[in-house]
């Protein structure tokens, strides 16, 4: 992953600052950087969103395709994740450089969504055992400036909110077989319930405290971080320790508590923002990628 070199003196400065709840960019320990969200940015997807968090930028596209349900759960659709670390984000990703990080991120996303409530998979079923919707969630990293997980999860939630799945009509043909018809009307579509989609909070242990939304400099001062994905109810769907160091149990408990608090608080404003943008309809001013 993109890393920066931090000198010893700088480390001490950052550590002391965080000890006093004052970070280099003026934030408190549990504050996020400025976040911008824009949905419906890629026209050839069924749902998309672009999120910038500080200088981290990610783009998420959701594509719905008709597939066959998995044999073990015939009455459910499924979600596939793919994270592409483009060489745009950092030259280190060139060639196969980003592959490892890409699989790490996508494997974590599978874990985050590995429960019954995050996405209602039953609603994705078209006809049991035969057809279902498969949601392909493609994440593209445009720029890395720390805290990829949080930015990605917010972008996924926004993109899923934005996703419009065409309505299907099942009719029986002459031979008794089923025929699937997609609605031609672009407005005749189903929306997903994203209420339970979790957001990821990454807590970085710096010194004896932990910070939310760490910058690359702060990350360089930390030995380990904890990833926690939290729903709006405060249910934790995934936790994971990342980084080369270890954490003592007490700080894990503290971080879980803080992560839950921060994550829970993230959902309401996010949903409000998404609904606001949606309500603007066509009147909304598109910012796009150059804005």
């Amino acid at each position, binding site marked *: 992953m993109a890393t920066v070199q931090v000198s010893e003196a700088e480390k001490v400065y950052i550590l002391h600052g965080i000890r006093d709840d004052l970070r280099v960019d003026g934030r408190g320990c549990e504050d996020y950087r400025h976040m911008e969200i824009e949905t419906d940015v890629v026209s050839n997807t069924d749902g998309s969103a672009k999120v910038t968090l500080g200088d981290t930028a990610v783009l998420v596209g959701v594509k719905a395709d008709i597939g066959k349900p998995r*044999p073990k759960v015939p009455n459910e659709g499924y979600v596939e994740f793919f994270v592409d670390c483009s060489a745009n984000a950092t030259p280190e990703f060139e060639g196969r450089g980003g592959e490892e990080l890409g*699989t*790490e991120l996508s*494997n974590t996303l599978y874990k985050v969504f590995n429960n019954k*409530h995050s996405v209602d998979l039953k609603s994705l079923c078209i006809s049991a055992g035969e057809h279902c919707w498969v949601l392909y969630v493609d994440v593209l990293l445009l720029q890395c400036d720390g805290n990829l997980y949080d930015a990605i999860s917010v972008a996924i939630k926004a993109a899923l909110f934005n996703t419009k799945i065409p309505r299907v009509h099942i009719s029986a043909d002459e031979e008794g077989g089923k025929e699937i018809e997609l609605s031609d009307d672009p407005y005749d579509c189903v929306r997903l319930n994203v209420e339970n989609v979790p957001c990821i909070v990454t807590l970085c242990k710096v010194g004896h405290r932990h910070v939310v939304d760490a910058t690359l400099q702060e990350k360089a001062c930390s030995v380990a971080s904890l990833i926690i994905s939290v729903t709006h109810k*405060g249910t*934790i769907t995934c936790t994971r*320790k990342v980084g*080369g160091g270890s954490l003592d149990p007490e700080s*894990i408990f503290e971080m879980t508590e803080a992560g839950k608090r921060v994550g829970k608080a993230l959902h309401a404003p996010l949903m409000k923002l998404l609904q606001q943008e949606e309500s603007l309809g066509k009147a909304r001013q598109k910012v796009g990628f150059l804005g």
Partner: protein
Amino acid sequence: MPDCFPHAVTFPFLCTTMPTDTKRVRGPEVSQSPTLFLCKHVAVLPSHGRRADGRQRDQVDVRPVFVRCGLVSQAKGSAYIEAGNTKLMCCVYGPREMERKDETDMKCGKLTTDMRFAPFSCLERGSWIQGSQDKDLSLMLHESLQPAVCLHKYPRSQIEVNVMVLENSGSVLAHAVTCASLALADAGIEMYDLVLGCSIRQNGASYVVDPSYMEENSCSSVSSENQGGLTVAFLPSLNQISGLQSDGEMNEETLTAGVRTCIEGCYKLYPVIQQALTKAVRRAAPPPSES
């Protein structure tokens, strides 16, 4: 006679079919596990009372483990662990010359981990090619072990940890962590502490420690809240958590309680592991004379 030499490179382009595995003896294109055609369905596991293998529910009742060190003659260190039917083998090679020197600082050694499943290790036959699940487990193993290894003592070199799952009967990651740390210790690699792994499966209000494969994969419909798995890697004498992973849905209290239970499980394992190691040392040589 052809006038130009038909060189190797021209042929792959002629074959436009699916890339087939040319490096193994191939069987039929498709085959299915007989378990898909069972005439009788397998009995559902009990969700209360005693567990299927007679262990206690809601208690730190780990399976008795059998451990041996130094079985593989070619490796620097090796360990075999058997917990119930879960059987794992780990070999450690190195420190040897670093393969890719392009990376970062040479003052520190590098730890590489590789975890894979034997094709016959699971209920359904696995493929030969390492999937993303194996890669994710390798990464988790790496994160759990790295904090314990004194890598600064091995400049310019890499230490390789290879884990092979011979039979998967649940909690493989937890046992892989324990097995790998045993193998590292057997190899004489300097470490700050041993690393022990333990996992639990939460099922509504009750939980099972060191779940079997069936317990891991059965999700009862009794309660939809608080369902999930948790694996912890723990350094017992430093009281540090080096690896943590959970999925499913849990509230904060359940998660914290789960982490505590796992730590307790690790402590139960500790004396067995210590004994296995000291036994291996004693077997290798009598104590040196005190001079």
